[in-house]
């Protein structure tokens, strides 16, 4: 973007007021993201909260061996990947579609109303939203009543008692709650498209579908690529609050994600070293996935984060 280094520096100082606004963010990140990394060393120690960290004995890879040889760890990996894959494949395109459809609405008032209503659920905490979901999924809940009224099932089903529904429950509830919110970034990207492009295309005889595909989608492609790369790197993460609210003893087999495993096996009994070891591995894998997705995106679409 800039011709040479001297130009960049000059440019930087000319905008110093704007540039200085990023300083608190950098300070925040340094304090809360970089400094804590040092304490990853407790993954290799037998750290107990009662003693200072540096006095704890080194135990090497003991905790890593512990979880790698635990069948429940592998089960949690399977569950996390299962839920994340559904969310990535079926969930990722939904906000994009929603943003595109919303963009085609000509009535501004209606558009704004739909947009506002759709992102409101985002502001409800999962503890509450999860409780609502549980009621909906219960024996006398809306979902059972609706499906019975439609004749799709003949008796009430306790949806959250059967493990086979769990991944789909997380997917649907997440989509319901977050679609509107996730669409905001795409709507913003769409708003930044030069209207001249549409006018030119219209003159050239492009219909609405063609304009949507060749202008809107192509223009927001970098945004899609970046969010996709980030989504792939987050594939070993899961929505802890959501799963914590919806899980129970009966669906645990399919519900225990990596985060919940760390919570159940580590934090509940105060095994901080163990939890850190699992998190450590997860972060390394996530970093690898980030590079992989970035590389793939660069090759395939030409858009990438770095």
């Amino acid at each position: 973007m800039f011709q040479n280094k001297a130009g960049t520096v000059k440019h930087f100082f000319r905008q110093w007021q704007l540039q200085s606004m990023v300083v608190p963010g950098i300070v925040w990140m340094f304090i809360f993201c970089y400094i804590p990394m040092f304490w990853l060393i407790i993954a290799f120690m037998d750290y107990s909260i009662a003693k200072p960290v540096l006095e704890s004995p080194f135990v090497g890879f003991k905790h890593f061996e512990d979880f790698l040889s635990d069948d429940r760890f592998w089960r949690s990996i399977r569950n996390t990947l299962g839920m994340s894959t559904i969310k990535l494949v079926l969930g990722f395109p939904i906000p994009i579609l929603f943003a595109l459809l919303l963009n085609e609405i000509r009535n501004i008032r209606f558009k704004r109303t739909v947009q506002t209503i759709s992102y409101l659920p985002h502001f409800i905490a999962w503890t509450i939203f999860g409780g609502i979901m549980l009621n909906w999924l219960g024996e006398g809940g809306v979902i059972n009543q609706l499906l019975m009224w439609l004749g799709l099932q003949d008796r009430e089903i306790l949806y959250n008692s059967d493990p086979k529904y769990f991944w789909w429950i997380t997917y649907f509830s997440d989509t319901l709650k977050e679609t509107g919110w996730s669409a905001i970034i795409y709507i913003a990207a769409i708003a930044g498209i030069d209207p001249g492009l549409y006018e030119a295309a219209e003159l050239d005889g492009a219909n609405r579908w063609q304009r949507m595909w060749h202008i809107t989608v192509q223009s927001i492609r970098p945004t899609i690529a970046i969010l996709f790369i980030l989504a792939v790197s987050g594939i070993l993460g899961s929505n802890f609050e959501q799963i914590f609210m919806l899980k129970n003893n009966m669906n645990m087999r399919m519900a225990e994600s990596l985060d919940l495993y760390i919570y159940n096996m580590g934090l509940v009994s105060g095994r901080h070293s163990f939890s850190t070891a699992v998190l450590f591995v997860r972060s390394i894998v996530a970093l690898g996935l980030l590079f992989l997705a970035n590389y793939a995106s660069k090759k395939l679409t030409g858009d990438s984060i770095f």
Partner: protein
Amino acid sequence: MKRTFMKLSMTIALAFVLTISIAACTNSGNNENTPTNQPTNNGQTNTGTTEEAALNPDEPAWKLDTSPVDLTWFVGANWYPHSWGESLNSKYISEKTGVNVKIEVPSGEANEHITLMMTSGKLPDLITMGSWETAVKKLWEGDHVYALNELAEQYDPYFFKVAGDGTLKWYRQENGNTYGVPNDSYSPNLMHETGMTAANQTFLVRKDLYEEMGSPDLTTPEGFLNALQLLKDQYSEYKGQPISPFFAQGNVPYGMTEYLQNLLAIPHEKDGKVYDRITDPDYITWLKTFRTAYERGLINVDFLVDSDTQVEEKTNNARYFMMVREWTGMSAVNPMLAASANPDSYYIAVDGPQNSNGDSAKLFPGNMDGWMVTMISKSTKNPERAIRFLTYLVSEEGQRDLFLGKEGETWDTVDGKPQLKPEMVQLLENDIEKLEKEYGVADTYWMVRNPVIVNQWRPEKAPVIKQMEDFANAQADIDSGIYKGLDPLGDSEAAVAWSRISQNWEEVLPELITAKDEAAFDKIFESFLSRRDGYGFAQVVEHRQAELDARKAKMAE
């Protein structure tokens, strides 16, 4: 020019605001305490000079210094709804002692909350935590709390006079120090003497349905299944909604395991060895009964999956038929149901599942561990005020102030005996919420409640509650308190093994109940037992045995 100036000043202003807010964040913790330092420092110097003369082991030391002081008090129960300083009683106590308490409750799990605080090295002045929580042990071992005996020697020897010697001894650690005072601690002698056992595990049924069905026998598997069948055939709906035939409090680990085993009177110990209760034939028989009931569609698995809110809703609408549930949890609902349009829809305690010998239940009574323990953290700036306040609270005078409130306002002496005023008793029966919020007497501040002292002032309970309580008292196995909580806790190898086993059991039990036939049931149970061995059950057994032996030795002292 003017615009750039505007922009510039805006930026500076913004940066300034940001700096301030960051600074405010880091400092606020310290700021809070500064004003309170002043008077106490004075107090310290005052007492310092006269200490030798003033400290009298027969005289409470809180009277020496009643200057205002703030103490933060962490109550390790996220559901604890009360604050200090609004209710009449808390104002009275603050005025009397000069201590203004600021109650803090965890937003999530108490254990995690206090662990986080430990890492940060800043703890509230007073800490009340469940005696079973792993964090309690860490507080003691990590030297985060004061040894109460040392503090008492230094500032208030009256403490030794009022803190029951038995309980102090019970919580004494190997280094000779005691770090916490329990509440609701019951010694077997006391229970034998008074018949008040604090047992709260009951088997409840809805009175009207149970009586309409002809008070069926629920103690044998056959009777149990027949009653459920009858319920399904004739009473499957209540107020237009389906009846939930069965509920077990605390889900798998509590209601369906320990609690059910107590109802079946399964022994804790055989020939001096800790007994593996989960493999007991009677227990297995009953789990199979639940499986049969599920297979026949007589019970649903809602009791294994419902959230607390769903359970509460069903309870409040009397939609359960049978419940394995602590009666204390029903003390608000039962009077409400008895006062509703259907006054017989409340719950009564009856004989529930019994073992093949027909023995009556052997319920856990209260025990020496008590419920929660209260400690004084080393972060406190006012250790002498904290120990004096604590001594006051556990003394008879403090117990009376906490439970009864201010004489003449909330209680009177009738026939030489303190009694809550009739309007207080009225509120206790009908509107506990108002009583606790406005007056703050009775069980509002239970953090150091001593049942030996306060039970003498308790008014007679409403009959719908008393029935359940009496039933539980009659079935309490007074000497079994010693078996409660033998399992290893914390992050030792045995504890990790136990947490893996018990978490696995939570998943296995639902599988057992939903197993398609008895053969499948047996197979799932067998595979659980072998998995349990793989997780290190031997270590758990060893720990339980050692713990039991140690307790017996302590009791014998």
